[in-house]
């Protein structure tokens, strides 16, 4: 038999499977929209994928410039997309995120958190020293209105609820804080310099405003105002700064593969912490809108709320708020999710496929 005859025979065998391709395409389209009817239906998809791969490899050689090959390419891509689509289980994903992933990220980011906090504290002291020594420098950090109000012996926060209701104030504050946190994280893209700038600027402003209010005898009032919400708000600033620093460090000295791969891994891992930051900032915003501006709350109550909420934050970051079953090994977090778990929606599918393959394999003699 000549090579040409052989190719013709192979081509005929290949084309005779066209109905299987159509069935595989229909199944891939259906499973992309809805869950599999049962495990057999889902495993059939994996079989389809292998069939399409096999036929496509043959079609690329035998009939490269045909519609049949194009059809197979499209069917293969569709099957691949369906197989590698992640399961949609929002409740499980959230539980895993808060119970396992965020604590793992916090452990990984601990050196960055320490450094970001140190930088923030240093800039607070620097801002305090600057304005304490050169009072005119407050114009660099505060608006003319704020300066005028403090010089009149009042805090700008006094009577704020007469202008803006608590709910609106909370919304404005939490939106602003979340945006600043996201900026601190994203700004890490500029080799960490953007994050450093945002951390430094906020630290300088806090220190400068404390020094300025201290010069007018309003330091205790300012402390009284910020203590309830500030403990967590400032901590979250340091956390998002740490996430941004990790992104910057990944670009400066890549630890996984090339620079872009390292950046991707750092951004995806540290980005999980931003979800916890956003949740915590919602709580801070509510406290800042409803508790901090109201004079009826005594200092001890504010301290209890501030410190209590800070401990709640620690519990959230440590994963203590959710019952734990097993820790995710840190090395596994470095892998793409598709490599962590191949195939489809049903849990246990991979085991089923393996069992089936084991069953098909010839058994060694007893």
């Amino acid at each position, binding site marked *: 038999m000549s090579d040409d005859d052989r190719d*013709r*025979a192979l*081509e*005929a065998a290949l*084309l005779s499977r*066209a109905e299987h*391709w*159509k069935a595989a395409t229909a199944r891939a389209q259906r499973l*992309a929209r809805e869950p599999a009817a049962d495990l057999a239906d889902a495993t059939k998809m994996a079989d389809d*994928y*292998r069939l399409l*791969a*096999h036929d*496509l*490899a043959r079609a*690329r050689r035998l*009939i*490269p*410039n*045909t*519609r*049949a090959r*194009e*059809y197979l*390419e*499209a069917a293969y*891509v*569709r099957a*691949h*997309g369906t*197989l*590698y*689509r*992640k399961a949609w289980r929002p409740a499980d*994903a959230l539980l895993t995120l808060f119970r396992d992933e965020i604590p793992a990220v916090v452990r990984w980011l601990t050196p960055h958190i320490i450094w970001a906090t140190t930088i923030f504290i240093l800039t607070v002291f620097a801002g305090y020293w600057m304005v304490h020594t050169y009072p005119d420098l407050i114009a660099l950090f505060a608006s003319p209105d704020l300066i005028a109000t403090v010089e009149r012996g009042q805090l700008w926060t006094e009577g704020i609820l007469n*202008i803006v*209701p608590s*709910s*609106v104030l909370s*919304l404005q504050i939490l939106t602003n804080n979340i*945006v600043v946190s*996201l*900026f601190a*994280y*994203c*700004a890490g*893209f500029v080799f960490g310099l953007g994050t450093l700038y945002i951390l430094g600027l906020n630290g300088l402003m806090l220190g400068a405003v404390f020094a300025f209010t201290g010069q007018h005898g309003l330091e205790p009032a300012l402390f009284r105002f910020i203590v309830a919400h500030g403990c967590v708000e400032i901590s979250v600033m340091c956390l998002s700064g740490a996430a941004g620093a990790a*992104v910057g460090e990944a670009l400066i000295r890549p630890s996984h593969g090339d620079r*872009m791969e390292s*950046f*991707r891994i750092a*951004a*995806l891992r540290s*980005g*999980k912490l*931003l*979800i916890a930051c956003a949740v915590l900032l919602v709580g801070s915003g509510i406290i800042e809108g409803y508790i901090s501006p109201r004079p009826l709350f005594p200092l001890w109550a504010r301290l209890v709320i501030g410190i209590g909420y800070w401990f709640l934050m620690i519990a959230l970051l440590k994963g203590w708020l959710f019952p734990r079953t097993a820790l995710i090994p840190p090395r596994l977090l470095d892998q*793409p999710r*598709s*490599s962590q778990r191949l195939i489809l929606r049903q849990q246990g599918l991979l085991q089923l496929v393996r069992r089936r393959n084991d069953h098909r394999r010839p058994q060694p003699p007893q």
Partner: protein
Amino acid sequence: MHNARDLVVDSVTGVDLALPVAGPGVRSYAFLIDWVIRAILFTAWYGVAAVIYNRRWTFIAPLSPDAKWFVLVVMPAAAMYFLYHFVLEIAMHGRTPGKRMAGVHIVTREGGSPGVGALLTRNVFRLVDSMPLLYGVGLVTALATRDHVRVGDMAAGTLLVYERPDVVLPELVAPNASGEQTLRSSDTEIIAELLLRWPHLDSDARQSLGTAVLSRHAVVVSTPTDAWLRAQLERLLRGNSP
């Protein structure tokens, strides 16, 4: 086999798959469509809600806005505008109406649909991509990078690829009575395509194309009328020698 601009993904089957990467032009086109849609959604919600809130034909915010104004008017409109991409990309598996119209969708570097985390990261980094204005950073990085990705895509490990157009599987030739394949599939497709277009062709085109195809298969064209040519082509397609 694959284009240099394709994303070639290794598969566990050993047969790689090629996904054509979308360039900055089609990305901008999709973004513009989405921008128009969300601007319309934002304006429509804001306009209708403001009129209902004010109880008269005015869209102006009250001098001292209360919580109801923010909850009913401002927040839903802002959410539609700012969460449009994130929400729709999750709901539509890496697509938005704009991307769908432009024929592109988001995939991971492994060729699969991106997860919620990747889509969230991709959209958070719009803060960087949109700077200093008009998506300047995003546009420059999309132009400069090999896979035409913006910073958000780099961070999330995603990229935009073209949707594969729906290909209609041609009517394939059946083996003849002796079980042999008489036509190559490329020839089958040519004949099937010609017969599909037959009613729309004028007589001259039918004559010349029909004669050319039949001659390739050693068919002597004795009476080249349209009906005869068509009958011969159909017989050839069915796997019977004319």
